[in-house]
């Protein structure tokens, strides 16, 4: 977080990741390569490959690139609760960097990347594209100051489902500090659209440990509500509730088939990236296996 430019930060993470990986980023989990399909009556003749017909005297349809490439939408929570941070930077800073890193990475391998920023409603929307300058726009949108207030996933996710009609990858980066049942209801909208969903829950180390040493007034950053707390008294109860909430979220994700990653803001960014790729890899293998079982 010492690097001010978000773009540069993302680039450093990705390149460092590559260097450490010592393997080509273009292998394994990219788009399915372009192929031809034999024409059958009823297909759109506009997509016939006349050159191949000239060579082979067969009608073949050319499959479009965009059908085969990955469309990824990054959903970044900019609610006030994300503005908390005890390490000199906030959870939102971390989330932005993570989103930028993923965008840089996916863009680098030719995938279309889009962006939703939201708080109680969608603030910025960039459709998933892969074109020159798009990544820059995305970075600018991410760097924009947040004016959000409370976390409310319902409305933004409904809008995401509306706007991202084509199936693709949805990466939700949020602290998910909302009641579990509400989360389940809202996240279910994404599965209905057939999207693949990866969720990053961003938490501050202090949120996990609640490591305050004396009694004081605590103010809810979203509701501005003040309560007096003695941390020593409430710490155990707090951690228990937080853990239960985390488990609840994980259970929902498992049920809905989402990949869930809890990221603490004091962890290096490349670990989160590695987790992401690993989950993508696992899913790729799972699909391959499923394809082999049912040819």
């Amino acid at each position, binding site marked *: 977080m010492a690097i001010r430019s978000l773009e540069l930060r993302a680039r450093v993470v990705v390149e460092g990741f590559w260097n450490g990986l010592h393997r080509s980023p273009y292998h394994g989990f990219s788009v399915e390569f372009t192929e031809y399909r034999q024409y059958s009556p009823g297909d759109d003749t506009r997509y016939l490959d006349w050159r191949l017909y000239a060579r082979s005297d067969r009608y073949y349809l050319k499959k479009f690139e965009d059908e085969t490439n990955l469309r990824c939408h990054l959903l970044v929570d900019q609610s006030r*609760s*994300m*503005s*908390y941070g005890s390490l000199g930077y906030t*959870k939102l800073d971390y989330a932005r960097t993570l989103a930028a890193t993923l965008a840089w990475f996916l863009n680098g391998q030719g995938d279309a990347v889009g962006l939703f920023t939201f708080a109680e409603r969608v603030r910025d929307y960039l459709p998933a594209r892969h074109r020159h300058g798009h990544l820059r726009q995305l970075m600018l949108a991410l760097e924009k100051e947040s004016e959000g207030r409370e976390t409310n996933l319902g409305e933004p996710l409904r809008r995401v489902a509306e706007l991202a009609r084509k199936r693709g990858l949805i990466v939700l980066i949020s*602290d998910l*500090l909302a*009641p579990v049942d509400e989360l389940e209801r809202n996240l279910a909208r994404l599965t209905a659209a057939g999207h693949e969903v990866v969720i990053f829950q961003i938490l*501050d180390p202090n*949120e996990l440990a609640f490591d*305050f*040493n*004396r*009694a*004081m*007034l*605590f*103010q*809810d*950053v*979203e*509701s501005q*509500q*003040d*309560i*007096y*707390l*003695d941390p020593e*008294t*409430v710490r155990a*109860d*707090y951690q228990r*509730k*937080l853990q239960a*909430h985390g488990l609840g979220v994980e259970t929902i994700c498992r049920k809905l088939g989402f990949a869930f990653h809890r990221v603490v803001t004091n962890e290096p960014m490349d670990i989160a990236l590695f987790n992401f790729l690993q989950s993508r890899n696992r899913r790729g293998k799972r699909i391959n296996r499923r394809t082999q079982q049912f040819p």
Partner: protein
Amino acid sequence: MNFLSPWFLLGAAAIAGPILFHLIRRIVRERMTFSSLMFLKPTPPKLTRRRRLEHLWLLLLRCLCLLLLAAGFARPFFSSNSAMPVSPDDGRQLVLLVDTSASMRRDGVWEKARNIAEKYLAQTTPADQVAVLTFDRQPQTLVNFGEWVSWGLDQRATLAKQKLAAVSPSWMGTQLGLALTTAAEKFREDTANGRPVSRRELVLISDLQEGVKLDGLQGHDWPTGTKVILERVDAKPQSNAGLEIQSASPSAVGDDQPVRVRVSNARDSGREKFRLNWQSENGTTVAAAPMEIYLPPGQTRSFSAPKLPAGTTAAEIRLTGDEVDFDNHSYFAAPEAEHLTIAWFGLAGDNDPSKMRYYFQRVFPETPARTVKVITPTVQQTFSPELLNQSAFAVIPGRLTPEEITATHDWLARGKTALFVVTDEQAAPVLSALTSLPEIKITEATGEYALLGDIDFTHPLFAPFADPRFSDFTHIHFWKHRRMEIPASAQARVLAKFDDGSPALAQIPVGSGNLLVLASGWNPADSQLALSSKFPPLMQTMLDWSGGAVPARFQFQTGDAIPSPIASGGAAVQWQKPDGKKESLAAGAAFSKTDLPGIYTATFGDKRRQFAVNLPLDESRTAPMSPDELARLGVPLQTPSLVPLAKIQEVQLHLQRAELENRQKLWRWLIVGVLVVMFGEIILSGWLARREKTVEVTT
């Protein structure tokens, strides 16, 4: 230790604030924002006795700061008797200035004024010094401070009231400006009597009508601490108009020119129609029909009075139609034409332009007011001293017989004036004989011509020519003139000199009279003087200055001095006032006891002359004047005090305490103390905050 504003000490209760805030601040000392409180439940704060007592010194400093601030605002001072400038028990100097002008003659006004004055006299304390003055045209002292102090304590008010009871309103105008300044000077005169005085009050008891004169108030230097308390005596609202006869010419009576009357209607008058009519001395109506006049309120206008019967020498004109009577009469004395004779010694030569008399005779044309006759005091070649005695002035062109010299010398010694024209060197013995100065030498001057060089414009003869527009005498050429050598013992005054330095016109006293000696003639052979425009006014001035002329005025206001109808040296004048009182005055002495309006008669020898004395028209302007006018002219006005004495003393004591506090200014030290304590508080709180932070880091 006393406090000027002790109620500010209540501000010390504000120390409850810091104590409370200190406690509250202990409870919620820090605030921490947190991402979500959804997993947290509030826990009750734990307070311990030790925590409450933390930072006690800081609290004490803050409380001390507030206490010092409250004490500073309460303005403390140390009471010290020596520092008290004036004790509240010291007396005051009180001047009662009571208006006795003619306008106070209105119904009930004088009684009210006297009641107010008596009320003030009754309220005096033994320490007070009181002076009582009345004023109309002139202020008069009834009681002065010294007199008041010399009286017994229990008699002071009574004696002053008795003196006041003997006074009644006069018939004079109101010179309020002069009265106020004179009364204020009373304070200054009696300042040195050594008695302590806490305040100076000048109580003006007057109807303050519009017609008062305020001359002399502008820029007056009022004695320090003087307060003028205005006690206006309100008259019953009545319509009032007054009148005044304007100066009339001698031809007014029995001629076509009517007498002019100026009528003034008061601003608050409710009437507009009035009548004018003449009355004789016994009250009967003189004119056939009264004259109706119309005059709106607040206006003054001149009217032609009804015609008087021929031969009327004195009459009274009366105005009717208003409600106030004191100013409805005005008296008229018919002016008399003045008949003067001037004795001319020497040959007649009336119609010879080469002679001086030709020109002199034409200098005095006949006017309605004055007839001047130039006579030769010689009847059938014989000098007639009677003719000389009847003359107001004489001209002696160089030659006199011994008999004439003797008679003229005696005539001059009785206070008369003559003009001696030096026609040649042979005039010297005559001049010496007339002035009883044998050393006078006269020689014929040589040279082309002479001009007047040095003129004494301060002398009454040349004063009218003093203005630079008229002071040029250089165009008068004197072809011939004589050099005079007048000895110093003559006590002569040279009024003009020729450019060769010899006297041209000199005034030589002879007994109580004067002889004017002119060193050249005005006949064309001698000079161009008679042809100059300066000649007639110079001769007229000589005649007027000689004292032979009678006064031209016959109308006067109450309080004016009437000049004597005959010059000094004549017979005694018997004066008769309108109320019948008689008084004999020497000739030349003015009659000044004109305290009543009416016809004044002066009898001298077998002659009788009448003068009219009237009330000033300004007294008829009885609408009340605004006190703001006085304030505008710098009069230190104070509204009449209805506050009891105890209250006044209380206020005064407060003022003295304020003065004492202002001298000591202890509040400044308290504010300095506040700053020092605040500085200490800042240092201490900063140190405590740093210490706490260090403790946190280590834990």
